[in-house]
């Protein structure tokens, strides 16, 4: 499979593919971080995760339309405003859903699967009624569309860099919130032993609501970022949900580090194989590898040491 390429070409192929893999990695991490919090920490199987992303994407679309028609001077910077709005829109909807539905279903993961699956269908229909069945085009500011030429063959897309930077920023913030703040300590305490946490005076209901909202909010930001690389339509969220669960489960559901490690493994494997094999074959091989590893190691790549 290497025949026909010179050594120099192979060098740049691996460099380019490595970078393509890094972009894919960032996309996976963005998709999976929110779900890792909701599924990994709270044990809720959220099938509507993709729809929370698409809500973020639609918010971005509305924002771009609104700003380009009212204050065009702000347009180059609209993306940052859109991401913040997307976070709060998806987060607020998430909290509403937690209050109206999820809180009655804790400790019944299979029921959360059904309920959120229904929710995803309802949200799709709402998107279809409001925005129409067709995909909408989200216009990006020009500065996000170019690329940086490193060598003759290696060109780095700016929006890829942007997604990577965003991923790093969000990961750092999540890490700080979950592992370095009192609030995060409270979250982890509630998730590990709800009764005990309640007994020491933590308001567990409030923690649940904000945690779910945080997970959904991150999904909204991810959706906002994906308007740069993907489509925005009522059913686009479905495209992401399988990959997202794949990343989270493969990494070990309860470990945020595991999510990142698994996103890295899957993206690099897929990106490299895609170059030398065909796109569909690469996908099949990736899935096969994941299945085999999960058979040998059902708990995923990383697992927290907890007393059972």
């Amino acid at each position, binding site marked *: 499979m290497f025949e026909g390429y010179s050594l120099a070409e192979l060098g740049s192929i691996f460099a380019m593919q490595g970078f*393509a893999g890094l972009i894919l990695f960032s996309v996976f991490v963005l998709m999976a971080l929110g779900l890792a919090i909701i599924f990994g920490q709270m044990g809720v199987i959220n099938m509507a995760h993709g729809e929370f992303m698409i809500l973020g994407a639609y918010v971005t679309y509305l924002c771009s339309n609104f700003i380009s028609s009212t204050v065009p001077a702000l347009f180059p910077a609209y993306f940052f405003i859109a991401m913040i709005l997307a976070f709060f829109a998806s987060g607020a909807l998430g909290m509403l859903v937690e209050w109206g539905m999820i809180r009655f279903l804790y400790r019944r993961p299979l029921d959360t699967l059904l309920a959120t699956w229904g929710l995803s269908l309802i949200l799709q229909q709402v998107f279809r009624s409001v925005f129409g069945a067709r995909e909408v*085009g989200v*216009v990006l500011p020009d500065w996000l*569309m170019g690329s940086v030429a490193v060598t003759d063959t290696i060109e780095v*897309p700016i929006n890829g860099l942007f997604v990577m930077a965003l991923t790093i920023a969000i990961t750092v913030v999540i890490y700080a919130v979950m592992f370095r703040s009192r609030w995060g300590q409270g979250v982890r305490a509630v998730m590990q032993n709800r009764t005990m946490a309640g007994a020491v005076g933590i308001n567990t209901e409030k923690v649940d609501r904000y945690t779910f909202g945080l997970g959904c909010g991150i999904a909204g930001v991810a959706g906002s970022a994906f308007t740069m*690389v993907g489509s925005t339509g009522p*059913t686009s969220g479905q495209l992401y949900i399988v990959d997202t669960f794949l990343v989270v489960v493969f990494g070990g559901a309860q470990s945020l580090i595991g999510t990142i490690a698994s996103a890295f493994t899957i993206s690099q494997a897929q990106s490299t194989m895609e170059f030398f094999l065909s796109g569909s074959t690469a996908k099949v091989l990736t899935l096969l590898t994941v299945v085999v590893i999960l058979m040998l190691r059902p708990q995923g790549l990383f697992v927290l040491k907890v007393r059972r």
Partner: protein
Amino acid sequence: MSSDKFDAGKPVGGLPSPLRRKLLLGMAALPAVGLLPRGALAQALPTDAVNTTKLAVTDSTVKVGILHSTTGTMAISETGSVQAEKLAIAQINEMGGVLGRKIEVIQEDGASDWPTFAEKARKLLVEDKVAAVFGCWTSASRKAVLPVFEQYNGMLYYPTFYEGLEQSKNVIYTGQEATQQILAGLDWVTKEKGAKSFFLIGSDYIWPRTSNKIARKHIEMKGQKVVGEEYFPLGHTQFNSVINKIKLTKPDVIYASVVGGSNVAFYKQMKAAGIDLNKQVLMTISVTEDEMLGIGGENIAGAYACMKYFQSLQNPNNEKFVAAFKAMWGANSVIGDVTQAGYLGPWLWKLTVEKAKSFDIDKIAVASEGIEFSGAPEGYVRVHGNHHLWSKTRVGRARPDGQFDVVYETADLIEPNPFPKGYQ
């Protein structure tokens, strides 16, 4: 009766509503039958004579089915077809209907699910006894309903360009089959752009694979080279790897049959990776004005699309059609290739019924050969004995505003050839 006389005339009867005026505004044409007082024709041709097989035809009405997905993943594409078919039916009714009978529509939702399509087709044919069905979009849905139409002897007008390798007495294919769409476009790009090497990229299912097989054979027969051929699962959103491969192999032409939402990712990522479609020739057979809405014109401007119809086509038929479509479905609606092919269905059926002087399916299947529709927005079409259309092939160049400039069209109608030698 002759179908060539599409002079505009005054309609008779009907409700003087704003909708009616809107319809008239862009009505493609009014054949002579529209000038007769409504009902005169129906009396001249009694129901017993024009309907010997117990279809849902009365002295004043005839029922037809529309079978498309209005929910599920295909709703995005099929909505346009439904709109075009309803427009054509409204226009035909406005002119007095078919053989003096008003068309009544029974619409069913295939819900993007192939068994559902088969079930609804059965319902339309067995319970509703419709005289014709306009519907289906994906090849999978057509394959699912085909045995139903053959078993219960129904007539389906199918609007999508498709891979060919099929022919049925019970189906009229109003879109192009693969050879019609592909060969002329490849010849054009070879001649105009001096193309010698091609990179084929598509979604992974039957239509792109068959189309690329035909394209590859044609390319290699002329001594040109295919430097890459890649397929990605439906809905795939990461094309960075294949874009790298395209950069490395430097093909003269990227030949794309990526479908649906994947297109958005594909073109946005190409642009971000520094591939300028004004310099790199790209020809697509799957991006219409509908997909352009999602992709964003600025991301695909400069690309060439090869199909039989573009909204910007300049001829009197099309100008009326576009105006009528927008009057009925909103000023922001766009019309793609398949939408126009959907519009042809009810008109071809009407002309065939009037030629056969009968609603009987068997008579229509035979009478279809040679039916000509000069009011077609794409210009002019003719039905071949193999139930496909003779049609022109055109190349359009994508503009930033989401429309295409037509840069080339074949001089003559191309004969449909659903079973090309050596491609099966």
